[in-house]
């Protein structure tokens, strides 16, 4: 027998805890964020006049005095915007018109009314004081309950009602299950409105180039690039005359800077009207009153159960409050979790009734966890209530209903295909890490000593990699059939070698701190057998020159399941080309060429190895010497979409996400009855991240998502009074967690790589944003022995609950 020569062991980078390539620039203050850029000479500054009223008709806007101020170039009003642009499209049938500025009416405090373009921001703000606006105030509609009443003043008169979307779905034999039930648990839940408030606010630098009738719009926008299509339509130009440019660095986003980003249109129009490039950097008050947030939600749940805790069916009644307008991708808030509505449980039947209401509040959009925290708050509170009502052990109820490890891939009744998992094992690992027996003993000991302690638990499925089609399920089948089907969730990446062999990777993901450059370099280094240092990864996006698709961007934790695969595919195309060239040079088959240590090495003939840079040089300088069929240069773009993301079917089933992780959380806390303060003593979170790409970054994502969940649980809320006035317009009123509020978090893993993607990785950034609010709510309910818990659990609210 002839032994084959030993294969060269390639350097493994995927899965290594590599510190980030992004760090040196950011640590030295040399990042390039939107307000650090100066792309156009003679750029003016914008300031925005905003509505002081929640709901009012605009009778007149007089900007004469503002225009007379030295340094003021132009004033743009809503009336003019309506003349020169079109409203943004959204995914519902009702005609809720949304412009980036108030047209005719103001519908929330902070809504733009006029834009001043001036020499500098100080002068622009001076000019705002000189604009006179006459308003006729209308009834403010602030809360969901009022919006549901037929006689509430409609925000959009052409729709005639504040209920702007309604759909019902039934999957499986729900009526039969309720008839067979031994008990029915009913509960009502309210989830508050909050926002992830990135420390860098919005920023846009736009230039209307009249010579070509083209808009160049720089913005710290995170995708999806559906916005490009919507912008072109709103600005009334073809897509090839809207150039969207995303800076190399974005100062956090967590969904807030995603689609829809209306200020990109507004500042573009301000540039067109004023004839100069315009810069607008949002201030914090503007951000808190008029950027974006998640929805507040009213959920009514009915659960058909057997006495042993088996859940036979659920009826979910959702009312989501999108604020003053329906902005794309809304009503996705209701539909991101739709296919996964049964969560981690093998519940065979479910009925869902969805309504969307408009109120005089800040319009909504993506926010870390998007739709998940609202959904799991109702579902996981219900699971706790089932155990309490049936006097069963909470763990038994969970275990009895969890999807079994041998059932994957598991098709949930509403359509999600849960790709892989071992939920029981993950829960067991959480119990082990938490020392659950001791945890319960500690709780009982505290109670015996007169203190108020509780244990909370939650199990959530964490979807990642949203499909482009799931939102179309908001439309009834017959309407959906009228347009072309939407499926998949593609991402594009380019890997190129210049004539010196230097490697450049170009992403379309517009990251905001997730470390995509590092992970992309890890993948490319492993595929090409080169060092991490030899790779430059470009994160800035330019829709005229970058590879991108309509789904491109960073949202729904999609880098790991989707973009990372596109990186790998592009690198493999390059690898194939390099090996083919080397094979010809060495006279061996391409299959026998390996890439390692920056060399192409014929198997067993190391002496014949050729440096990759020489192969790249050949491809650029000497294309006639290339093997037949190979194109000159080394510039390979790969597109990847997950095959399993099909368009919604005729039964309204939709697999809304590429892959599904899992999170099991356990927490022990004490409540101080006298002050209402919550002391979280133990928090354990076990994750299924599939194949982990970089453990250092994975932990960072989990800890970040945890902090957002904690903020939502304990302190964050966008608060309005009964007149619709905003009460949370500063960081002294809108409280975010600081270092002192973060309890110790113990992280565990039971990872099951996805069988549906080549890398098997799952998104991990949002799981704890979804699970923490309800875990803490469950623990507080347990501590106080109550059923009704409303977030955020501020000391005042907890104190009130404790007095009952």
């Amino acid at each position, binding site marked *: 027998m002839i032994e084959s020569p030993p294969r060269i062991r390639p350097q493994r980078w995927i899965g290594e805890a590599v*510190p*980030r390539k*992004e*760090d*040196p*620039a*950011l*640590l*030295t*203050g*040399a*990042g*390039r*964020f939107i*307000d*650090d850029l100066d792309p156009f000479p003679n750029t003016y500054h914008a300031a925005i006049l905003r509505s002081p009223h929640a709901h009012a008709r605009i009778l007149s806007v007089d900007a004469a005095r503002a225009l007379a101020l030295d340094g003021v170039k132009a004033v743009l009003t809503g009336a003019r915007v309506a003349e020169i642009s079109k409203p943004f499209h959204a995914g519902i049938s009702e005609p809720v018109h949304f412009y980036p500025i108030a047209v005719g009416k103001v519908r929330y405090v902070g809504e733009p009314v006029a834009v001043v373009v001036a020499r500098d*921001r*100080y002068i622009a703000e001076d000019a705002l004081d000189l604009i006179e606006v006459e308003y006729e105030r209308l009834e403010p509609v602030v809360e969901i309950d009022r919006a549901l009443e037929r006689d509430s003043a409609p925000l959009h008169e052409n729709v005639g009602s504040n209920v702007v979307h309604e759909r019902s779905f039934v999957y499986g034999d729900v009526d039969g299950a309720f008839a067979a039930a031994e008990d029915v648990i009913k509960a009502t839940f309210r989830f508050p409105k909050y926002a*992830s*408030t*990135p*420390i*860098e*606010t919005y920023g846009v630098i736009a230039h209307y180039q009249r010579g070509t009738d083209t808009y160049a719009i720089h913005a710290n926008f995170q995708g999806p690039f559906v916005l490009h299509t919507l912008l072109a339509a709103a600005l009334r130009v073809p897509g090839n005359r809207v150039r969207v440019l995303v800076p190399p*660095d*974005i*100062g*956090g*986003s*967590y969904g807030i800077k995603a689609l829809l980003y209306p200020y990109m249109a507004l500042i573009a129009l301000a540039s067109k009207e004023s004839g100069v490039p315009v810069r607008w*950097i949002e*201030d*914090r008050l503007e951000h808190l009153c008029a950027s974006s947030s998640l929805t507040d939600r009213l959920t009514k749940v009915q659960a058909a159960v057997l006495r042993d805790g088996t859940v036979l069916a659920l009826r979910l009644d959702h009312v989501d409050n999108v604020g003053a307008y329906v902005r794309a991708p809304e009503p996705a808030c209701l539909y991101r979790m739709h296919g996964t509505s049964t969560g981690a449980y093998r519940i065979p039947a479910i009925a869902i009734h969805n309504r969307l209401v408009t109120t005089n509040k800040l319009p909504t959009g993506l926010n870390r966890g998007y739709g998940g925290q609202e959904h799991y708050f109702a579902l996981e509170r219900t699971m706790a209530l089932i155990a309490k009502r049936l006097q069963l052990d909470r763990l038994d109820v969970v275990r009895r209903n969890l999807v079994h490890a041998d059932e994957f891939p598991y098709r949930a009744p509403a359509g999600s295909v849960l790709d892989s998992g071992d939920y029981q094992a993950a829960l067991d690992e959480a119990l082990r890490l938490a020392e659950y027996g001791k945890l319960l003993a500690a709780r009982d000991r505290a109670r015996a000593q007169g203190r108020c302690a509780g244990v909370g638990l939650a199990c959530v499925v964490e979807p990642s990699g949203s499909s482009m089609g799931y939102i179309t399920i908001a439309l009834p089948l017959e309407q959906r059939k009228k347009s072309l089907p939407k499926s998949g969730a593609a991402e594009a990446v380019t890997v190129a070698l210049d004539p010196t062999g230097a490697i450049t990777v170009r992403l379309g993901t517009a990251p*905001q*701190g*997730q*470390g995509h450059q590092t992970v992309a370099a890890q993948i490319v280094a492993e595929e090409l057998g080169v060092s991490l240092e030899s790779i430059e990864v470009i994160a800035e996006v330019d829709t005229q020159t970058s590879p991108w698709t309509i789904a491109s961007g960073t949202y729904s934790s999609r880098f790991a399941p989707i973009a990372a695969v596109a990186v790998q595919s592009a690198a493999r195309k390059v690898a194939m080309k390099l090996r083919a060239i080397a094979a010809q040079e060495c006279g061996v088959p391409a299959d026998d060429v390996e890439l390692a240590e920056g060399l192409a090495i014929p198997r067993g003939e190391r002496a014949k190895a050729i440096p990759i840079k020489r192969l790249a040089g050949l491809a650029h300088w000497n294309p006639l010497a290339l093997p037949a069929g190979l194109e000159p240069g080394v510039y390979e773009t790969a597109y990847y979409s997950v095959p399993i993301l099909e368009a919604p079917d005729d039964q309204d089933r939709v697999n809304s996400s590429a892959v599904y992780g899992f999170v099991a959380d356990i927490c022990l806390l004490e409540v101080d009855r006298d002050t209402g303060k919550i002391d979280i003593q133990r928090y354990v979170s076990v994750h299924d991240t599939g194949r982990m790409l970089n453990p*250092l*970054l994975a*932990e*960072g994502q989990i*800890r*970040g998502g*945890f*902090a*957002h969940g904690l903020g939502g649980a304990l302190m964050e809320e966008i608060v309005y009074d009964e007149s619709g006035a905003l009460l949370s317009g*500063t*960081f*002294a009123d809108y409280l*975010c967690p*600081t*270092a*002192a509020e*973060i309890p110790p*978090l113990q992280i565990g893993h039971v990872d099951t790589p996805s069988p549906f993607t080549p890398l098997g990785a799952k998104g991990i950034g949002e799981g704890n944003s979804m699970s923490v609010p309800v875990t803490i709510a469950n623990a507080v309910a347990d501590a106080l022995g109550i059923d009704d818990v409303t977030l955020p659990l501020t000391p005042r609210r907890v104190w009130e609950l404790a007095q009952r």
Partner: protein
Amino acid sequence: MITHKAAERAAISLTLDGVHVKEEAPARMLLSDFLRQTCGKTEVHVGCEHGVCGACTVRVDGRPVRSCLMFAVQADGHNVDTVASLGSRDELSPLQRSFHEHHALQCGFCTPGILNSAQVFLEEHPDPSEREVVEMLCGHLCRCTGYRAIVDAVLDCARAGKDETP
């Protein structure tokens, strides 16, 4: 006390990251805007302009100061340091290195302000407790990391500094 009208321009001379600078600014201009827009110091990041988030923290005469709560004219005659004077890409400071190793930054927007505060803190507390580090960090909002890695980075930097002391 010197008084100025809001739009009146005043001469400002200061030492900025070790370099003497002579500029002019309207009396109402914030130090943060002056540093970014007049002096080109985009290392200074502005997050809230009302003194809560801490992103714009610089060192004025060696003290951490929120540059959005100070007027540029008040910096006249003083020493102002941004994160640029801590270390460079090729030669990160021990604190910057520790942040890198601990993955104590994600988007990096709040990072320069935190580094400025932590640098002064470590100069004054060479052997800090975790509680003291957490208290210092409470002057800053970071929405990416959940803070744990930042606490570890500062503590580890202090520990390493102690080891190096003869």
